[in-house]
């Protein structure tokens, strides 16, 4: 009898690993091994024809920390994250509350909010190019109605990053709205009725009942928005290419540039490792603190 159990146990183990093997091989090849290889690469100098690459320890990292462009890019990305995360979440929440209330033309409103989500970032950038082009663009034409001078939104360091930020917010707010919309629909009707009986205003109901109940969704969206603030850089290729003077350059774009335009793989690797560390901390926070807090969902 014990023998049978043992055989069954072993058979399950073999099945389990067989079923898992395609995923395990692919994940190893394209996630785990590359992570380790990136770390390894970041410890060596850039090999040239004359001087083969050699072990340099933390030199790539110290070079990076001494590079003013790196700090510029980090600052840009912090501004990018600091602006896109709260603004897109706030807009998404407003959209969801509106799209969930009984307003006329609700179908149109929902569609309009969500449509940017299905467009490629590259296409979105092309659409916005038409807005930003100096002289001909929509923004300048609206400005000229009020007698404002033409502004080169993408060409001057003060505005380029913000022009990029606006496109990102436009792209992701509708996506986040969907999650809020889903959460709103799970709030029981009786809460609204109870609030009405108690004479609470709609504003109070929203602030004291709806928003707290949406908290888990907000945390979930926040993690997504944070990942997006690293990942969403496609529009830079069309709108600014990181310029002018690195004013709108973001970390992932800089990694790409380092590796595939300047062919400096070790520097790119060092930067990748720093990004992975940050993402790892976010993952740690998500899986330990946030997931414990949201269990009542």
């Amino acid at each position, binding site marked *: 009898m014990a023998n049978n159990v043992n055989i069954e146990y072993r058979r399950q*183990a073999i*099945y389990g690993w067989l079923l898992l093997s395609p995923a395990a091989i692919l994940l190893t090849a394209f996630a785990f091994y590359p992570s380790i290889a990136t770390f390894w690469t970041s410890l060596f100098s850039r090999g040239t024809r004359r001087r083969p690459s050699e072990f340099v320890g933390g030199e790539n990292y110290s070079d990076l920390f001494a590079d003013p462009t790196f700090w510029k890019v980090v600052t840009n990305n912090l501004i990018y994250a600091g602006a896109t995360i709260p603004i897109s979440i706030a807009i998404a929440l407003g959209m969801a509350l509106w799209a969930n209330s009984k307003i006329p033309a609700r179908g149109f409103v929902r569609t*309009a909010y969500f*449509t940017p989500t299905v467009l490629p970032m590259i296409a979105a950038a092309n*659409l916005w190019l038409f807005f930003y082009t100096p002289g*001909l663009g929509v923004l300048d034409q609206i400005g000229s109605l009020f007698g404002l001078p033409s502004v080169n939104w993408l060409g001057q360091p003060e505005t380029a990053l913000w022009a990029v930020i606006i496109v990102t917010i436009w792209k992701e707010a509708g996506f986040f709205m969907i999650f809020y919309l889903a959460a709103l629909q799970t709030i029981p009707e009786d809460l609204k009725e109870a609030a009405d009986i108690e004479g609470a205003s709609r504003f109070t109901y929203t602030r004291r009942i709806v928003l707290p109940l949406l908290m888990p969704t907000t945390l979930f969206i926040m993690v997504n928005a944070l990942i997006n603030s690293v990942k969403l850089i496609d529009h830079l290729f069309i709108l600014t290419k990181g310029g002018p003077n690195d004013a709108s350059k973001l970390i992932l774009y800089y990694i790409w540039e380092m590796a595939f335009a300047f062919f400096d793989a070790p520097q790119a690797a060092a930067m990748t490792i720093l990004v992975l560390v940050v993402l790892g901390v976010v993952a740690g926070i998500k899986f330990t603190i946030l997931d414990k807090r949201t269990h009542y969902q």
Partner: protein
Amino acid sequence: MSGLSRHIETLSALLLAVIWISPLVFAFWAAFHTTSDAVSFDLTAPWTLDNFRIAWAGAPWLQYFLNTFLLVTIILIGQFIVTTLAGFAFAQVRFPGRDVVFILVLMQLFILPEVLIVENYVMVSRLGLFDTLLGVGMPYMASAFGIFLMRQAFKGVPIELHEAARVEGCGWFGILWRVYVPLARPTYLAYALVSVSTHWNNFLWPLIVTNSPDTRPLTVGLSIFAAPENGVDISVISAATMMSVAPLLIAFLVFQRQFVQAFLRAGIK
């Protein structure tokens, strides 16, 4: 509840909606007008298809469409196979080390393929898959997100059905194929929609791995076509943009309800 504030709210909602689709509307307008008419916003200006003709002649769009279509299909098939097997293992098979491995898989949610572009490029080249559609698709096939989704779906299948199928003499593959896969159909549909729209729109990785018109997907083709160095005007760019977003956009407008449901299902874990 005063009627006035209600009206203000409705108006703001509509205003935001109009602002939100205006980039698309302007591009649509520009695509069908000459550049000078497009930027002067003369509503009586004649409509034209010339921009589409110029754009169409300017790049091998048909090839790009085909590449994107094939790419999305390859990724989807790969993802279905890999995530079904792995999801089933995590949901219904008890084996040592399962929980540790599951945590490793979840970690991939944060080790983004986008961030590992340098080493993934080396890996794809080493496998001889540089400038192939398979090379573009491979890093996405073992999607941690998909594995997680399938595991959740398979966990919801009543164990009685599993037992019944086994009593009938089904092997594990038969049980998976005849019981679990059909019951998880809504999840597959949701996942497919999310996957297709993600990879239809993906750009950075395909840009790195493809190097010829034979493999380039639409997004990369569009970015090359619209590059400022090429000096094409805004109306032609708009036409090319409308052309390349049209299939997904039309599909979205037609299947809107299913689309939104799919994103919802994929989002709520």
